[in-house]
């Protein structure tokens, strides 16, 4: 695995090199600034697999560097592990929004750092598989991706892959800066869309729905991922997550906006179920992500289907709104 590690402190660079090499990562390139990193990326004879960027550096900082790397097609999905002495949520959020996939803090906990690098390694492998699948010629319909499987979505503010979302959650749990909560949104009609569309068409629709959810969550500092089966998982600070009813109204309105063209031949009549917020339990370990599963499980408490025209109170009680024409 080829790693590019960028830090303006020479001693940190040396420390990173020593630690990574001792743990078997011998193909490590060091850069002293964002500008130096871009030069080394441009000159690399083989692409890098994982990046480690210090956030705060003179000149181009790690967040800007992440933006620049994400603009390169080859590195659009590559793991970027941010390294910094800072642990303020604002920096973490900005790093993830810029496209970072993980985060380690200085002073280094070596075991932790190597764990993050191994996770990045796994993430890279997962992304390569996704990229290969996406580049493959159109497959016969019978080989279409299962509805239950997640789909890679790119370039939506606040949208991250499942692996990245899990990393974010672990960091938030570790730093205990605020209470996090997760909830799931299901758009039941996506199953019919999946059945009647190609993989590519379905991906377009999922991307558009993800964009709508991202718009609804704007300002809530939440991150979203698509977990498959028409379900989106959202995680953010509990205190800033929007009210369910507000979200429902906005979701339905925006999902069925006549100006929003999902895909030809795809009917734009969607409903949305929003599950109750699930939170980590006290004393749960950092790696224990079962509350994310609980958030998805909470969808089962939503009624199966209701038609448009129910009163607001009834809809709110059922946490379900339909925009189907009555």
């Amino acid at each position, binding site marked *: 695995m080829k790693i590019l590690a960028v830090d303006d402190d020479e001693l*940190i660079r*040396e*420390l990173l090199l020593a630690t990574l090499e001792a743990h078997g990562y011998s193909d490590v390139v060091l850069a002293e600034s964002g500008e130096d990193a871009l030069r080394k990326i441009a000159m690399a004879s083989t692409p890098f697999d994982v990046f480690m960027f210090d956030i705060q550096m003179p000149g181009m900082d790690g967040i800007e560097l992440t933006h620049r790397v994400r603009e390169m097609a080859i590195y659009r999905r590559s793991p970027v592990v941010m390294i*910094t002495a800072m642990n303020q949520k604002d920096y973490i959020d900005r790093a993830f929004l810029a496209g970072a996939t993980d985060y380690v803090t200085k002073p*280094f906990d070596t075991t932790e750092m190597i764990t993050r690098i191994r996770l990045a390694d796994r993430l890279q492998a997962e992304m390569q598989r996704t990229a290969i699948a996406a580049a493959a010629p159109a497959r016969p319909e019978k080989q279409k991706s299962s509805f239950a499987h997640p789909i890679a979505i790119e370039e939506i503010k606040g949208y991250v892959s499942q692996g990245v979302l899990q990393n974010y959650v672990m960091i938030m749990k570790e730093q205990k800066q605020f209470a996090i909560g997760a909830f799931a949104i299901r758009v039941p009609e996506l199953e019919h869309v999946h059945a009647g569309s190609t993989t590519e068409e379905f991906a377009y629709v999922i991307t558009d729905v993800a964009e709508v959810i991202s718009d609804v969550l704007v300002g809530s500092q939440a991150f979203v991922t698509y977990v498959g089966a028409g379900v989106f998982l959202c995680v953010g600070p509990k205190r800033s997550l929007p009210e369910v009813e507000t979200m429902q109204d906005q979701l339905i309105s925006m999902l069925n906006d006549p100006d929003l063209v999902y895909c030809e031949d795809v009917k734009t009549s969607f409903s949305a179920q929003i599950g109750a917020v699930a939170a980590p339990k006290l004393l749960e370990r950092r790696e224990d992500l079962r509350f994310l599963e609980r958030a998805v499980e909470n969808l089962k408490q939503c009624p199966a289907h209701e038609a448009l025209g129910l009163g607001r109170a009834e809809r709110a009680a059922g946490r379900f709104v339909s925009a189907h024409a009555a």
Partner: protein
Amino acid sequence: MRQALGRTGWYGQMVQGLDADRAAQLDAGLARVRARFIASLSDRIDGFYELLGGLQDGGDWQDVTADLRANAHKLHGISGSVGFADIGKKAARLEARIDSLTGTPASADLVEIRGLLNQLLDTMEQSLDAA
């Protein structure tokens, strides 16, 4: 150096999970970085004293605090990773206090910053003497 570093605390954590050869490899690397850090302490201390002077003689507080913050930030990043956690914590406190400034600092702010800087310098000097 390996013996001097011991197998507990920060160092024990750094080599945790490695076989003997890898641990020895990391051992040598960490010892090198630690030695260079100790060698750099004297210059870092001089740099902080210069900035302390700038704070006391009514120099441009913006430039001085920006430099102070940058130096404290770097120190915060490296110290704990090479076995000087106390220096790292005091540098982090100084960094955070400067970050909390909004607009022109009151004289009480500068007094507090000078106090934190003095505490950091004391710890750095003690560490240098003990190294």
